[in-house]
């Protein structure tokens, strides 16, 4: 990174948005507000994808996560009422220990990332990604990754049928 100062600045803004809204997602009491912050966080991740020259992924992120998954969450929240009332305890009793463990986990990952990037394994000159990202992705999906592509479509079909079977009324 640090190609241009603008990229740097955009990264820090996006990182702040992602981290802060991520913390909001896991800590707010009102689950509906959590869903709103989840949308903000996922949009920030889409911005990070743009910074990383993955425009197609950014578009897919906005379409699928922000457009579909987050809205699905909002629907689930609305269909299962009385979730956002004040008296409901949103976290279990292990919150302190879990916070400690996750902080230790994050710090450990930080050191691992530092050590491995310093060791210079990945310091080879980065070749530029092809400019027409989307075309290359499409070609790869249709040639080399043909089988996973088909399998994942079967997975989606199974998920759709499974969701319908699970959610329909008994005997309907």
């Amino acid at each position, binding site marked *: 990174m640090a190609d241009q100062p603008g990229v740097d600045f955009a990264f820090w803004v996006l990182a702040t948005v992602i981290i802060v809204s991520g913390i909001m997602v896991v800590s707010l009491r009102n689950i509906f507000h959590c869903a709103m912050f989840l949308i903000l966080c996922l949009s920030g991740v889409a911005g990070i994808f743009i910074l990383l020259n993955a425009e197609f992924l950014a578009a897919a992120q906005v379409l699928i996560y922000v457009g579909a998954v987050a809205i*699905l969450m909002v629907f689930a929240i609305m269909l299962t009422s009385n979730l956002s009332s004040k008296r409901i305890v949103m976290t279990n009793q292990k919150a302190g220990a879990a916070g400690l463990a996750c902080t230790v986990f*994050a710090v450990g990952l*930080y050191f691992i990332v530092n050590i491995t990037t310093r060791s210079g394994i990945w310091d080879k000159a980065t*070749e530029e990604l092809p400019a027409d990202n989307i075309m290359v992705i499409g070609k790869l999906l249709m040639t080399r*990754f043909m089988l*996973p592509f088909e399998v*994942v479509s079967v997975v989606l079909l199974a998920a759709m049928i499974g969701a319908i079977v699970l959610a329909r009324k008994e005997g309907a």
Partner: protein
Amino acid sequence: MQHYLILAAVLFAIGLFGVITRRNTVGILMSLELMFNAANINFVTFNRYVPSESLTGQIFAIFIIVVAAAEATIGLAIVLLVYRNWRGIETENYSIMKW
């Protein structure tokens, strides 16, 4: 590069915290989405900064997005089912599923 990796690590830790501490099942699913996104950031970062022949990392991220969408669908269907049976979606309600 390491900035992106550290961002992903922090996001993953936040998601892990959410999965551990939430009592609300929808909250757990949302935290799971955070963890999926952290993994996606890692894939795209490595695809961008480690010399590779093609866009394999981005393809992988696409498959992760698809699987996450399927997981969210099934998870929310199960949530609806549990809510219909127990009038609440706290994780204690799932204890009957224990073996």
